[in-house]
């Protein structure tokens, strides 16, 4: 059926062309890009505004930070301690920001305090469905820097700076920093 239509069309065009007087048919007359029913999602016709899709899967290596993420699956929080000046970072980093020396791993305490916090009622698209959620920077005794985490089991009404909190771990690891989260250690 489709073939018939194509033939009809091409014969019509042949009549209109100067080649009809018995000469050879144009060689490329039947060359066509195949059509598809893909179409376009159009938001607006003036200015013409269409949907343009883009998606990527990365092959993301945690590289030097890998032990931290493996640690989460074992219920362990790993920080970085400078091998030269002894500065202790709660969030892992391969080299010391203060003196430039390499760091070694150490186990962070699982109890800390809320250094600062917020409750997010909106967010990036990826986290919108989780809102409202709490973010907190956690401080630990004997550690120089902080650790960003989710804080659950408390709301805007009862979270306080200085509130004691403790780490909990997902039973089924996703190998993301959200494998660890914090909960209030006692009623403030």
């Amino acid at each position: 059926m489709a073939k018939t239509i194509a033939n009809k069309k091409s014969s019509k065009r042949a009549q209109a062309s100067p080649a009809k007087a018995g000469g050879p048919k144009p060689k490329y007359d039947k060359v066509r890009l195949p059509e598809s029913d893909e179409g376009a999602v159009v938001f607006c016709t003036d200015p013409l505004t269409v949907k343009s899709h883009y998606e990527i899967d990365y092959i993301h290596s945690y590289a030097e930070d890998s032990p931290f993420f493996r640690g989460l699956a074992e219920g362990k929080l790993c920080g970085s301690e400078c091998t030269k000046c002894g500065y202790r970072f709660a969030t892992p980093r391969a080299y010391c920001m203060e003196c430039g020396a390499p760091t070694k791993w150490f186990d962070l305490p699982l109890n800390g305090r809320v250094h600062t916090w917020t409750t997010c009622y909106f967010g990036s698209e990826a986290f919108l469905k989780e809102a409202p959620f709490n973010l907190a920077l956690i401080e630990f005794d004997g550690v120089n820097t902080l650790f960003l985490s989710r804080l659950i089991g408390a709301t805007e009404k009862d979270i306080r700076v200085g509130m004691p909190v403790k780490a909990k771990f997902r039973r089924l690891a996703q190998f993301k920093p959200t494998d660890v989260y914090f909960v209030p250690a006692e009623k403030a």
Partner: protein
Amino acid sequence: MRPVYMISGGITKFAKGEPRKSFRVMVKEAFDYAMRDCPRLTRERIDGSVLSYFSDHFTRQLMAGIMAADMCGLVPKPTIRVEGGGSTGGLCFQEAWRHIASGWMDCVVAMGFETMSHVNTWKGNEFIALASDTNFDYPVGGFYSGYYAMMVVRHMHEFGTTVEQMAQVSVKNHKNALHNKWAQHHYDLTVEDVRRSPMVAYPLTMLDICTMSDGAAVAILCSEEVAEKLCDNPVRVLGVGQGSDAMRMADRPHGNVILLKHEDASWYKNLKYPGVHSFRAGRMASKLAYEKSGIEDPREDIDFVELHDAYTSSEIQTYEDMGLCKYGDGGKFIEQGHPELTGRIPVNPSGGLIACGHPVGATGLMQAVFAFWQLQGAIAKHNDGDGFIQVKQKRGLGRRKMRGAIHSHAGTGTYVTVSILESTR
């Protein structure tokens, strides 16, 4: 380094969405505005360009800079793209300054843009949040408003800053913008309006936070010789400074304050600095810019500031970083009216990012353009005759020319630029 002058500037009116113009046409329009405002300047005189835009994601176009340069007819002259988050525009201005100061070029165009309306707001938030550590920060709930909210919660804890003081910043900047035709928003607000608007990330409401925008801005810089030839009323770039800090807020140290010339270590005996309550990069940028400009005390030696108020909270934090008041006094500084149009040192007479909009790569250059018009005394000329936001020079300071500071800031205080501009009138 030789003296550098700004001889013209142009902007497009920032809008939430500008679907009828692509980024390159917006840049071209801002460029044409600047060229018209300096009629003796011809395109042949321009030696090259510096382009700024923050995110390749928003346009989904790599090497967008060259497309803007070719639309403006500035190829095959040298051009380069500059990027540094929210500070992209400020860095672009300073890169253009280096082009001239070093003697490499005699006349250069700094051009910036962003088209953020090409994705919805939530996706835009995601693109912006990708400018945080994608191993440790972004996956936890990457959202810049959340990061700034945590910073100001700590500021409130350390210094007693209040949400009402933050709201006063929004009220002030929006009020100024009522007299700025270029601004994206023209709202006459009260503190209650700001507090009643939807909570985004405690304690920041929708009206504490700038919006996303489409727009472009252009600043033209040149040598003294070229400025004398081409412009009757150039503005001198007196000095520039820049600073940086760790990407992750969590990594910021808790040490000692970097002191400005007029400050005393005894003021901050018990303050752990910067922690997450202050922007060390903003302090470093200010210190360097003041040193290069011979500024002893910014409270006396600067007549106005256009600073990066992506959040009302960050405006308060920046008063302190720039030494307009002591660390900890930022809340009181706005409460006492010092940064108002008629106050001791007007801050964001244009309306700032909160009211004018924040098309990231253009923002720092927009500040340069507003400061340029201020120092030329030309606000009314570019604002349909309305000169209400024209800042007056400090009284009794006839001994020096009028000065303005522009301050551009990237995510949680990672890159910050401060540039000091001075009138030649």
